[in-house]
């Protein structure tokens, strides 16, 4: 670490350069970045190498094992598993990140406001309780009933349902993040450096953005990594209930679910989507670890 530090620590250097310098010390995080970019590249570039239509049903080749034309075998309708994993990955990753992002923004905003401003605490937390108490399934049914046709007409069937699902997952999963962030903010608020910052007349907004949020980053990061897994899995549960993507849209969660009963016939059908979900979550988690360390002001300045 000392070799990285400039001679004069007071030299103004952008925060993000600092973060990057610390981040690349973190082996786990670097491996995470490697694995994750491989998955993203594979999912987006894979179809150019292995150009089989994931929706093509080849009834002569049902439940096949590994072969040259089907490197991961086929499912019970003769669809190519590898092509499905690629196609499913694009949707799952997009849904996972978008929904995680939405729920993180909502959760952090509600949590910070509630934790920092005493006046907002009661109403906001009761609002959170309300969302925690709402039964998810009827809520989904209502949202889909109300907005599906509107969105389908506005954005077409694919984008429309994508937006709807991201919205649905995001809006039903921010509560835990909000609670955790609020708890963390409550504790940080009482720390000496906040009192100090306040005593020198720092503006509230700046206290929140420069002092509170960076210090609350680690639980937020954990929420974010769990949030991706959660979003990918919630999506599979939605597909299972008929509330998700149309049946001819593969996603990792759906592939895993559809393949579950075939585990003893064609294990590849569950192994690869399952592994893909796990590896994604794992690598994101390590990246999150690295980011957290890098963003932690105490660690950076030592």
């Amino acid at each position: 670490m000392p070799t990285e530090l400039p001679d004069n620590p007071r030299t103004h250097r952008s925060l993000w350069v600092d973060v990057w310098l610390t981040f690349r010390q973190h082996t786990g995080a670097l491996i995470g970045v490697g694995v994750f970019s491989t998955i993203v590249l594979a999912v987006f570039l894979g179809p150019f190498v292995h150009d089989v239509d994931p929706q093509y049903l080849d009834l002569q080749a049902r439940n096949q094992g590994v072969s040259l034309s089907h490197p991961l075998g086929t499912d019970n309708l003769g669809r190519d598993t590898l092509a499905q994993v690629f196609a499913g990955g694009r949707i799952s990753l997009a849904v996972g990140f978008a929904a995680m992002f939405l729920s993180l923004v909502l959760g952090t905003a509600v949590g910070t406001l509630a934790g920092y401003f005493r006046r907002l605490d009661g109403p906001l937390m009761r609002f959170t309780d309300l969302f925690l108490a709402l039964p998810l399934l009827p809520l989904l049914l209502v949202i889909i009933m109300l907005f599906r046709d509107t969105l389908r007409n506005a954005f077409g069937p694919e984008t429309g349902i994508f937006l709807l699902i991201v919205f649905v997952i995001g809006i039903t999963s921010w509560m835990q993040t909000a609670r955790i962030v609020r708890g963390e903010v409550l504790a940080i608020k009482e720390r000496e450096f906040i009192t100090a910052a306040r005593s020198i007349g720092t503006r509230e907004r700046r206290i929140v953005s420069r002092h509170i949020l960076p210090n609350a980053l680690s639980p937020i990061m954990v929420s974010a990594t769990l949030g991706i897994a959660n979003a990918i899995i919630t999506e599979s549960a939605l597909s299972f209930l008929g509330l998700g993507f149309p049946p001819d849209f593969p996603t990792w969660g759906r592939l895993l679910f559809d393949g579950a009963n075939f585990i003893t016939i064609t294990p590849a059908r569950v192994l690869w989507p399952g592994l893909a979900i796990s590896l994604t979550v794992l690598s994101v988690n390590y990246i999150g670890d690295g980011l957290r360390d890098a963003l932690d002001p105490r660690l950076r300045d030592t």
Partner: protein
Amino acid sequence: MIRYITRRLMFAVPTLIAISFAIFALLDLAPNDPTGQLPLTIPPEVRAQIRESLGLDQPFHVRYAKWMEQFFVNEPLNLIEEAFDVEIGDSSARPRIRSWATRSPVVDIIAERMPQTLWVVGLSYVVGILIAVPIGVISAYRQYSWFDQIGTFVSMVGFSVPTFFTGLLAIILFSVMLQWLPSIYDTTHEVTDLTSFWVQVKQMLMPVMVLALYNAAQLSRFMRSAMLDNLNLDYVRTARSKGLRERAVLLIHVLRNSMIPVVTMIALGVPTIFSGAIITEQIFRVNGLGQLLIVAIQGADIPLVQTLTFLFAVLIVLFNLIADVLYGILDPRIRYD
């Protein structure tokens, strides 16, 4: 503190009423229908008459008011009558909340489901905590050691592989291939002696472990991250430099402070025990509250869903309060005023 609690409890009443209204409105808006699961051989006019017999033809506010009366007046009175063996007014004239699918009082069904839910889901929660806390502590203390790496990997896999899959895997392994454990939970089984106790243990083993792993995965991540936060703080350095033994530093100072967010998490998770574990209950046929709720939702059994989710809301509000109070007890810096 007492003042804080009373104020919160007073706040809880309007909150709960708002929640009950939101749930009722939501269920009313939802497009599923109590006759939706009947065979198509039952013609539409008969369906219309069934809906009428369930009171669905009445306007929204009448149905909501009826439910409110039944839930807040009639059912508590019944409970009091049963508990103290007295008769208050004419109890037979007091309509009870009845499920549309079973036509029986909702409260009785819920009471019937409690034991298996608490045993299986509750126990899995406890087991999950017992697994998660040590793993989280050790992973944080030995950050980036082999133990940490493996712990992280296992907990991430545990979290990212859904229970519908781990449950199936467990059944295929232990019930089909090895034939060690039953795949179907017998809710009528009674523990009377050692043998029957062992039968109970065997039938609980798979659902409890599958759920516990899932719970532990999530909790151990939070435990680890909370520990890591504290390990770097100044007070730890101070404690060490004072010459305190490492064990004391770790277990007394760091653990105590790290437990603050984790205990909150645990307390907040308690209501989920009562909401059951829908998928796990389904796979192993534990038929607890989770299964009750999902069957009721699918069948649009509004009185049952409404009562169950509202009880759930009461628990959420209650445990939120408990979590906040715990926070104050564990972290002296937080003041209630």
